[in-house]
């Protein structure tokens, strides 16, 4: 017993060193243990309030270019409204008026929560950013996040007044996308380094595309509605696989200047998820 105590006292510093190394390794390698825990992320109360205070100062820095983006987006939307109005007017002449007014207007499926990015990173392999809205604002893990230009990420962990978002610039996260106007789905992935460039993989050979085409969300999940811009085709990348090809794309959003984003709430999410679960339950062998 005595020798044991002597041993512990003699090597206590080494023991402590080993203990801290062990603790760090647990943090590093056991992602699942605390993946659901907000305390271990930048969305915890302390770091989000520090980031919030700092954002109070730095939040004004990029307003000029963000304003330009918003003006462009506004112009595009206004154009679209005018076109749609024309089309509605033209269709009204074709369809009898009573049947047109009788049609039930479907309830809006998607709702948006505005949020401010208080911390952002673009220069790591696994980037996240933090927003100043959380579970009390109705934000839940799995919701999609967009800014004025396009898709920026998916909600990962939520605190009461903050949430951590997995950025598109995260090598572990993939998004389901397609070339606008086609129906074949590819997988968007980011490959470390340049925050403006990403790749769309696993597109079938026969999908036609042109340089400059828009890549949009596929809408095959409850995360994003269909047709939100993701990026623009720059060209094709040579791969070993002959049946699929990979496109190099320029991302629509400027990730180094994220400021105001919208979190997408899908009102149908609970219904869709329960339907999916129903399928899984009834499927034989599962």
């Amino acid at each position: 017993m005595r020798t044991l105590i002597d041993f512990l006292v003699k090597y206590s510093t080494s023991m402590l060193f080993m203990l801290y190394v062990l603790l760090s390794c647990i943090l590093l390698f056991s992602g699942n243990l605390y993946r659901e825990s907000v305390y271990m992320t930048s969305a915890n109360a302390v770091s989000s309030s520090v980031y919030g205070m700092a954002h109070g100062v730095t939040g004004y820095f990029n307003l000029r270019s963000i304003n330009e983006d918003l003006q462009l987006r506004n112009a595009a939307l206004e154009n679209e409204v005018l076109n749609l109005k024309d089309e509605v007017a033209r269709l009204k002449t074709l369809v009898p008026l009573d049947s047109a007014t009788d049609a039930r207007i479907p309830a809006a499926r998607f709702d948006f929560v505005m949020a401010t990015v208080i911390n952002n990173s673009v220069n790591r392999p696994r980037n996240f950013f933090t927003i100043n809205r959380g579970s009390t604002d109705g934000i839940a893990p799995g919701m999609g996040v967009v800014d004025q230009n396009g898709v920026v990420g998916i909600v990962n962990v939520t605190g009461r007044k903050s949430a951590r978002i997995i950025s598109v610039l995260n090598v572990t996260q993939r998004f389901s996308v397609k070339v606008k106007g086609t129906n074949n789905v590819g997988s968007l992935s980011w490959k470390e380094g340049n925050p403006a460039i990403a790749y769309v993989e696993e597109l079938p050979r026969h999908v036609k595309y042109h340089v400059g085409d828009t890549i949009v969300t596929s809408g095959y999940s409850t995360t994003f509605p269909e047709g939100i811009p993701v990026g623009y085709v720059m060209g094709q990348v040579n791969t070993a696989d002959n049946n699929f090809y990979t496109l190099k794309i320029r991302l629509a959003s400027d990730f180094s200047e994220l400021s105001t984003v919208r979190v997408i709430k899908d009102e149908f999410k609970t219904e869709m998820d329960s339907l999916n679960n129903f399928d899984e339950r009834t499927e034989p062998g599962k």
Partner: protein
Amino acid sequence: MPQSILRYAILLVVLILAQVLICNHIMLFGVAMPIVFIYFLLTLPMSTNPKLVLTLGFLSGFLVDLFADTPGVNALSCTVIAGLRRPVFHLYSGNDEMLAGVIPSISSLGFAIYAKYLVSLVFLYCLMSFSLEYFTFAYFGQMTGKVLASTLLSSLLLAGIDGLTGVKHRA
């Protein structure tokens, strides 16, 4: 003594805030990230209880991890440099009794020894933190670039910080 504890506490808070609010968002030329908060560990007196140094190392790394969403990366890197700072120090200064309890800085060690001590530990830190963060050989070139460039930038910055704070405690 309480005065110096206060000085170190303020230094720790300022360095960690500078790291998470400013330096973590900088990647000069796409490769060089300034690492400033480890200056705290490097500048603790050599007579400090090694267990205290280890604990401070682990905790400061853990704090930076919380802010940067890199669980364990900085905690492990800081623990390792906290554990190795004494052996590295004696490697360059020898077993000189005059330097037994010294506060490592340019003014106390002279430029040559301090530079070797600083660059070695900063390199060790950058090597560990970037390889733990990538954790794959797929981006080996990029990773090596980041390790070397960040070591260079951080060492220059830390030598600068040391020059500035060194003047203060001489006065």
